């Protein structure tokens, strides 16, 4: 695998994670539990879609063909490189917060290290995105603590969400030959080195929240970076891509 191809793959993964989670959070728009949270979820969604534009735009440039829009709207599920965690349905508010908590803890560590890598475009995007995900992590952590240490119902729902989503957490650290090609050139971050710090963040918040860390020995899904996804991604893309596919090149 050439360095160029590896970089393209790496940008797709980052861009697709942001795009898919951004789309999921946008589904909350107008459905938030309170006005303030509705706006907060939409803000986070817009941050993520902005990140997706950056990484997918750079991926298109590396490929020398198409645009960020082409990559977002003209690929099918098997060509998406996001982790399965971010495509999971919103569920209740606890589920949405736990999903963003798991992901933003990783994104925070990832972008922090990525900002120090060699490719100026990627490190620049990482530095900008780091500020955004730092806030997302804070927002979600604060909610997990309040939900976990809140009423019986909020505690139970949050514990359920942890159990439900836990088997998508190992995959956050999955790597392949694209990573290996880039890491040796200081063009990417070895995700496996982030595991310990990710665990520390998760454990600290769950402890404050009086929640129980799910059992690690269970079945763990993997394969998002190879285009393997749960059935939810297809439905998400059907909605997200409908307009540009039904009316190609339309303007609005």
């Amino acid at each position, binding site marked *: 695998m050439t360095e160029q191809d590896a970089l393209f793959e790496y940008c797709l993964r980052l861009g697709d994670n942001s795009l898919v989670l951004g789309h999921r959070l946008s*589904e909350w728009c107008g*459905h938030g*539990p*309170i*006005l*303030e*949270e509705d*706006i*907060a979820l939409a*803000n986070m969604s817009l941050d993520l879609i902005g990140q997706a534009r950056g990484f997918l735009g750079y991926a298109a440039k590396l490929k020398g063909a198409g645009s960020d829009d082409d990559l977002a709207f003209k690929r099918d599920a098997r060509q998406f490189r996001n982790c399965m965690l971010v495509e999971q*349905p*919103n*569920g*209740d*508010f606890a589920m949405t917060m736990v999903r963003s908590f798991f992901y933003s803890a990783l994104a925070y560590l990832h972008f922090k290290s990525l900002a120090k890598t060699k490719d100026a475009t990627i490190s620049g995007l990482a530095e900008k995105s780091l500020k955004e995900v730092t*806030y997302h992590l*804070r*927002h979600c952590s*604060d909610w997990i603590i*309040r939900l976990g240490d809140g*009423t019986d*119902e909020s505690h139970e729902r949050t514990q359920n969400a942890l159990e439900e989503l836990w088997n998508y957490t190992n995959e956050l650290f999955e790597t392949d030959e694209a990573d290996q090609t880039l890491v040796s050139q200081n063009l990417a971050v070895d995700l496996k080195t982030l595991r310990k710090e990710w665990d520390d963040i998760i454990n600290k918040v769950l402890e404050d929240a009086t929640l129980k860390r799910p059992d690690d020995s269970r079945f763990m899904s993997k394969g998002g970076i190879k285009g393997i996804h749960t059935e939810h991604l297809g439905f998400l893309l059907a909605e997200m891509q409908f307009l540009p596919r039904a009316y190609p090149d339309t303007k609005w």
Partner: protein
Amino acid sequence: MPENKSQIPNPEIQKSDWETWEVFTQKKNGEPHEHAGSVKAPDKEMALLNARDVYSRRNEALNIWVVPSGCITSSTPGDVGSFFDPANDKIYRSPNFYKTPTGVKQI
């Protein structure tokens, strides 16, 4: 969104339990904090996050204060006469008789 069906609100949880907080934002260094509006939040940390999301999402603020609305004491319409009218006819209280030196801003 069929996925959100489980989100039916529990009537036992009263959203009105949440306090109202007044939000003050500072637009530039050295400028005063100005009242921007209010948010609902269960505690001061969440009030700050909510204020940030509602009142500075388009880069309007450099600093934010949140204050429980109940901590603000306000004058009442009935106070208008005794509070403010006496200042009306004392033009000498305003430094209008000085010339502003050229080049001085923010007076």
